[in-house]
């Protein structure tokens, strides 16, 4: 089987990134665009742009029949889903299969299994891989509260169909358990159309460590090492790196082999990520498996030298894995910063605006996967992530230094972004020493958003002297005074 024309069923930076690899491999390429959507880098790269419509832009990107129809109409023989949207939707995979279009990703059965957090957990546990103590509502709904309470506090309530931190609640005492369960259930119903829940022991000050895996669908699986993703706000990652500063070489092999083992157990096909929660005592537990390319995949690419999208396309075309485990190095250190349109000082409120000036950093060891263009508009139609800044250095300290310099030179004017906040994280001594947990940003929120040196006199001068209307009024008055001969200061 060969793939000659690829439709990327996504947008923003990930669409641009996938298209670049597809084009470099000689494929004809196409990408989607909603009628009201701003032009982005992906639309400039793709050979063809397919307009989709829907009541909202997001709804259009979730419209399975419209997208499958588009793929058939333009003669695409494969669809790459990117991340988010339909990337983990088994119905989409089945619809493409029926239409004779190759889905670049795993089978619908594996997506179904891993998409159901409860079934995934049970599957992993049954095969002897580590999972945290838990209680699953479906096992016996009548005794759920009682069994949840027995897991012990603190505990975490999660929607069975969930992901991305939505609907998750931490409960620290028995008295609030029942009300929190009801709130989580409502959130689950709203986000996922599914109110079933499970609880698990909440690990205090945990790390989030995940492993990139790649399988050929025949049971051959290799891993591309780990990524540390503990720097999170609202359960969503904003800085990721590899290698993890927390792991010893022995622990690294153990966690990576565990991930590969889980992927082997489902005869995984394509790129996937096994996420673990890593406790301070060195124990780690399976969290979930994401059956797609992750936002943070570039850090893995920079330390291994592999193009993961090229690997995905190769596997989708039935050509198998390109490398054996021993041929996958982990060289140097890589860090990714997610540049988001949001205000870190007001609880990460999404920001909107026109991009008046954009100048993205370049240079040795610097990669920018951007979804925006100078002159574009940032709206609330989509996720606030605008682009990703990824750096590579010979070691962690040098990677941090390079990341700081690059993010300080990442100029986005016209819409509030988190570049200053990201730099403050990189400058924090606990980040430098690697002593962080998933609660780090919340614990350090005051330090990280503290105002810097007071430069308001300079800023006011700059604002006044660049205000054309103000200057012209001032000069007219000045001229008038001069002519009257009475001007003295």
């Amino acid at each position: 089987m060969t793939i000659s024309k690829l439709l990327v069923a996504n947008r923003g930076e990930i669409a641009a990134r996938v298209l670049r690899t597809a084009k470099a491999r000689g494929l004809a390429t196409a990408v989607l665009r909603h009628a009201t959507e701003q032009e982005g880098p992906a639309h400039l790269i793709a050979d063809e742009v397919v307009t989709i419509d829907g009541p909202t832009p997001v709804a259009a990107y979730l419209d399975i029949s419209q997208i499958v129809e588009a793929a058939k109409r333009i003669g695409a023989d494969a669809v790459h889903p990117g991340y988010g949207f339909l990337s983990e939707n088994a119905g989409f995979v089945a619809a493409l299969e029926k239409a004779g279009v190759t889905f670049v990703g795993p089978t619908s059965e594996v997506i179904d299994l891993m998409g159901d957090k409860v079934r995934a957990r049970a599957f992993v546990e049954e095969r002897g891989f580590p999972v945290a103590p838990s209680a699953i509502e479906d096992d016996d709904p009548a005794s759920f509260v009682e069994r949840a309470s027995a897991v012990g506090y603190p505990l975490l309530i999660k929607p069975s169909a969930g992901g991305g931190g939505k609907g998750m609640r931490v409960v620290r005492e028995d008295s609030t358990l029942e009300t929190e369960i009801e709130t989580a259930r409502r959130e689950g119903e709203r986000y996922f159309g599914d109110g079933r829940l499970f609880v698990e022991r909440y690990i205090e000050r945990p790390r989030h460590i995940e492993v990139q895996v790649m399988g050929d669908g025949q049971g051959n699986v290799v891993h591309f090492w780990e990524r540390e993703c503990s720097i999170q706000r609202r359960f969503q990652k904003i800085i990721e790196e590899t290698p993890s500063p927390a792991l010893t070489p022995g622990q690294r092999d153990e966690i990576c082999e565990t991930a590969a083992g889980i992927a082997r157990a489902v005869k995984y096909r394509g790129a996937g990520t096994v996420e673990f929660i890593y406790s301070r005592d060195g124990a780690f537990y399976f969290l979930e498996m994401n059956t797609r390319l992750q936002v943070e995949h570039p850090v893995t690419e920079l330390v291994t030298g592999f193009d993961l999208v090229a690997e995905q396309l190769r596997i989708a075309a039935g050509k198998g894995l390109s490398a054996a485990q021993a041929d996958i190095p982990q060289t140097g250190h890589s860090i990714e910063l997610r540049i988001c349109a949001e205000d870190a000082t007001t609880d990460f409120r999404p920001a909107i605006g026109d991009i008046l000036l954009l100048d993205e950093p370049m240079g040795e060891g610097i990669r920018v996967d951007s979804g925006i263009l100078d002159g574009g508009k940032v709206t609330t139609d989509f996720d606030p992530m605008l682009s990703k800044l990824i750096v590579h250095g010979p070691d962690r300290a040098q990677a941090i230094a390079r990341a700081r310099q690059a993010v300080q030179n990442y100029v986005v004017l016209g819409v509030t972004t988190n570049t200053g906040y990201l730099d403050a994280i990189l400058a924090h001594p606990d980040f430098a020493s690697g002593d962080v947990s998933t609660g780090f940003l919340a614990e350090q929120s005051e330090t990280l958003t503290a105002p810097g040196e007071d430069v308001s006199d300079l800023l006011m001068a700059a604002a006044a002297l660049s205000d054309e209307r103000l200057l012209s009024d001032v000069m007219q008055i000045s001229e008038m005074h001069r002519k009257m001969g009475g001007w003295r200061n």
Partner: protein
Amino acid sequence: MRRILQINGEETETWLVHDGACFILNTPDGAIHCQLEAAGAKGGHVLRANGKVRELRLAVGPDATFVHMNGRVHEIGRIDPAERLAGSDSGSSDDRVIAPMPGVVLSVAVKPGDQVNEGQPLLVIESMKLETTLTAPRDGVVAEMPFAEGDSFGLKDILAQLAPEEE
């Protein structure tokens, strides 16, 4: 000519003049002798102000100026005092619950005419995937609840209005 400049929520009244040789920005904290010249890359400028020299990148939006300086971006709101007076709004902020971010109304707990106490839940909203309960800012009577369950609202929309307090 006057401008109100706003940095991190703090407003400063300024008055710009030109003495024939140099611009002077007068502020309550003193005068700033200043000069701005375009230089280098797009939006690049050199600013001289009270003896300090800084390289910066700058972009002017309709209501705010954005400055990139020493690796940080700053936003300076610009308000023409004349326009503010012309469009001045009525009603005390204490009477309103303003949307802290865009979102959707999940439920409404009170109706116009209801007597409420400070801290009493008025409505539940969902913004950025999180549920938040908004409460009465003071004791009073509900005058208006502009949004119903299921309605979407924007940033800074008024979500609840209390009747003005009697003096």
